[in-house]
C-alpha cells in the first residue's frame, strides 16, 4: 500500500496571460475610446510630419497622378540651399524678433489682465468678452482695421501728426515687425487671459490672506503669490505663444503685403508658402519646415526648463 502526501505547498495556479491580453491591457475598452484621437493624430500630424521629413531629403515636386517623375534622394542638399539663402535666414531672424516682442508681452499682459478680471471689477463679463472677441474674429477682418489704423494716412498717423514715423509703420523696416507682434499679441490675448483665469482659480485664497497679514502690498502679493501660483499656466502660455508665433503667416501676408517692406516682415512659414506653393519647390519648403520644427522644439524645451526651475 502506498500513500501519497503533499509535502510542498504549491502556489495557486495563475492563468497565463495571452499576448493579446498583454497588448490590450486590463481595460481594452480604453483603446476603443482613445483610438479615434490616435488615428486623427497619426493621419493629420504624424504622417504629414514624416512625409515632410522624407520630402526634405529628396528632389521632390508635386506631380499629376500617373506622371512618371523621378524623385531622387539628395541628402542634405535642400538644407544647404535653405541655409545659404539670405531670404530664408532673414525670415528666421524676423520671427526671432517677433517672438522676443510677442511672447513676453503676451505673458505679462494676459497675466495682469486676467488678475484684474479675476477681481471684483465693474462690467467684468463685458470686459472678458471684449478681450476674447479679437481671438475669435477672422484675421482678415482684423487686418483691415489695423490697416485703417496704421496705414500711411491712418488714424494713428493723423493723431501723431508731425510725430508720425517716416516711412510709415507698415513700410518702415524697423517698425513693421513690432507692429505685427503687437497685432498678434492683441489678437491672441483673449485666449491666454482665459488660461490664466482658469489657473487663478487654483491659487489658494489663504496665501493672499497670509501675505496680507505679513503686510505685503497688492503688488507684493501679485509677485509673491500670483506669479508663482500660476507658473504651470505660464509654461503653457509661453510654449503656446512660441508655437503660434513661429507659425506666423497671415499677418505678413496681409498686413505688410507679402512680408514687406523689403522682406523685413517675412516669416519662415511665409517663405515656405512662396517656395512650396508658388514656386513649385516643396522639397526646399519642407527643409525650412523641418528646421522650424526643430527650432521650436528647442526653444520650447529651454523655456520649460527655465520656467519650471526655481
Amino acid at each position: 500500500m502506498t500513500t501519497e502526501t503533499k509535502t510542498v505547498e504549491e502556489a495557486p495556479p495563475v492563468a497565463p496571460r495571452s499576448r493579446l491580453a498583454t497588448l490590450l491591457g486590463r481595460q481594452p475598452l480604453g483603446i476603443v475610446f482613445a483610438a479615434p484621437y490616435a488615428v486623427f493624430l497619426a493621419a493629420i500630424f504624424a504622417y504629414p510630419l514624416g512625409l515632410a521629413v522624407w520630402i526634405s531629403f529628396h528632389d521632390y515636386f508635386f506631380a499629376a497622378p500617373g506622371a512618371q517623375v523621378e524623385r531622387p534622394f539628395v541628402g542634405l542638399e535642400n538644407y544647404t540651399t535653405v541655409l545659404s539663402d539670405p531670404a530664408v535666414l532673414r525670415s528666421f531672424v524676423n520671427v526671432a524678433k517677433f517672438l522676443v516682442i510677442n511672447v513676453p508681452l503676451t505673458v505679462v499682459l494676459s497675466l495682469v489682465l486676467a488678475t484684474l478680471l479675476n477681481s471684483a471689477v465693474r462690467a467684468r463679463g463685458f470686459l472678458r468678452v471684449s478681450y476674447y472677441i479679437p481671438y475669435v474674429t477672422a484675421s482678415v477682418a482684423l487686418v483691415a482695421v489695423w490697416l485703417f489704423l496704421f496705414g500711411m494716412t491712418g488714424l494713428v498717423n493723423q493723431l501723431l501728426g508731425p510725430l508720425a514715423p517716416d516711412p510709415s509703420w507698415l513700410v518702415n523696416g524697423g517698425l513693421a515687425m513690432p507692429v505685427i507682434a503687437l497685432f498678434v499679441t492683441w489678437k491672441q490675448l483673449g485666449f491666454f487671459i482665459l488660461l490664466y483665469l482658469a489657473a487663478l482659480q487654483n491659487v489658494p485664497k489663504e496665501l493672499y490672506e497670509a501675505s496680507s497679514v505679513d503686510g505685503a502690498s497688492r503688488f507684493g502679493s501679485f509677485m509673491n503669490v500670483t506669479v508663482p501660483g500660476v507658473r504651470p499656466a505660464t509654461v503653457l502660455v509661453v510654449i503656446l505663444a512660441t508655437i503660434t508665433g513661429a507659425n506666423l503667416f497671415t499677418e505678413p501676408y496681409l498686413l505688410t503685403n507679402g512680408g514687406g517692406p523689403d522682406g523685413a516682415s517675412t516669416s519662415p512659414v511665409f517663405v515656405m508658402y512662396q517656395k512650396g506653393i508658388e514656386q513649385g519647390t516643396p522639397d526646399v519648403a519642407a527643409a525650412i519646415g523641418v528646421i522650424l520644427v526643430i527650432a521650436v522644439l528647442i526653444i520650447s524645451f529651454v523655456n520649460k526648463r527655465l520656467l519650471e526651475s526655481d
Partner: protein
Amino acid sequence: MRSIVMAATTTVLALTLAACGDSGGSSDATTAKGPIKIWLSNNPEEIAWGEAMVEEWNAANPDEKVTAQEIPAGTTSEEVIGAAITAGNAPCLVFNTAPAAVPQFEKQGGLVPLDTFDGGANYVESRTGAAAEQYKSPDGQYYQIPWKSNPVMIFYNKDIMEKAGIDPENPPLATYDEFLDTSREVVDSGAAKAAIWPAPTSEFFQSWFDFYPLYAAETGGTQMVEDEAATFDSEAGQQVADFWATMYSEGLAPKEAAPGDAFADGDSAMAVVGPWAVAVYGDSVNWGVAPVPTSTGTAPEEIYTFSDAKNVAVYSACESQGTAWELLKFATSEEQDGKLLEMTGQMPLREDLESTYPDYFKENPDYLIFADQGSRTVEVPNVTNSIAIWQAFRDAYSSAVIFGKTSTDEALSSAADEATDLAGQS
C-alpha cells in the same frame, strides 16, 4: 501552373505600366470624346461669355456636354490649378491659365501638348501669328493657346490733370523726363496724393505692372529672359529702374499699398491698366489713355508693352481630350473671339484684330488704341522656374527701387545672376 502565374504577373505589370504612362497626350486620349468640365475666370463679364459659349456648344453637341464653373476660390488661380493637377481632378480646360505658371504645370505633368492634337500647332500659329512663338515651351511644343491679352497702358484722370494745370487732352507723358515733370506738377499742386500708384508690394507678379511694361517699351520688345539668360542687367533695364526709383524717392509714387482703388478714388492721377479699365472706370472717371513712357519718347506705333495675357490649356486629367480640343477651337474661333471682345473688352490674341472686327472698333473707338497696342506685346518668358525668377527680381527691385536700400545697378546685376541660374536649371 507556374507559367500561368508568370503570364498573369506579366499582364498585371504591363497594365500597370500602361496606366502609369497614360498621362499627357497619348493618341487614344487625344481623340476620346465625351462630357467634360471646364473652369472659367471669376470675372463677371468672362463668366457671362463662357456660359453663353457653353450653351451654344451644348445645343450643337448634346453627346459631348460641357459643364462650366468658376475657378474654385483660392489665393490665386495658379495655386488652385496646381493643387488640382496634383490631386488629379483638374478640369479639361481652364480659360484663365497664366503663362507664367505654364512651365510649372508642364513640369508637374499636368498639361497636354497641343501639338499632339491633329493640326494643333498649326491652329495656334494661324490664329495668333508670329506672336505665338512667345508661348512655345523650351521643348518646342505648345502647352497653351494664346487666348486674350490686356496690353498694359497708362490711364490718366483728365480732371486731375486740369486741376494741376496740365493739358488734359495731351498731358506730356512720352519721355521719362516728361512723365516725371507731369508727376511733380500733379503732386506739388495738391491735385492728387500720388501721380501714379502701382502696387509697391512684394508679390512675384507685381513687376508686370511697373518695371516690365516700361522695359518692353525701352527695349523694343525684349523679354526678361531670353535664351536662358537674363536680359535686364543692361542700360535699358538701368534706365527703367532709375525712372521708377526717382518716382518713389520723390514721393510721386507711394511706397505703401493703396487702401482701395487709388485711381477710382481720385487719390492717383494715373494708373497702369489694360482695356478692362474702360468698362471699370467708364463714366466714373474722366479718363484718357497713353502708351507707357520710354527714355527717348518712342513713337506710339513702335511702343511695346506687357501683354497681361490669359491663355487656355488642356489638362492631362481630362479623359475626353478630343472633346476638349474641339471645344477649345470652338471657343477661340473668329465668332467666339468676337463675342469675347464685345462682352469683356479684352483683346483676343489673334492676328489682325482690328481688321477682323472693324464694326466693333468703329462702335467702340475707346478700345482701338488697346487693339493697336495689342499687336506689340511682350509675354513673360516661358522658362523653367519662371515664378522663382519673378520673385527674385521683385525682391531685388523692392529693395533698390522702392525702398532705396541698395543701388539699382547692384540689384539688377544680382537679380540677373539669380534669374540666369534659375532659368538654366532643369
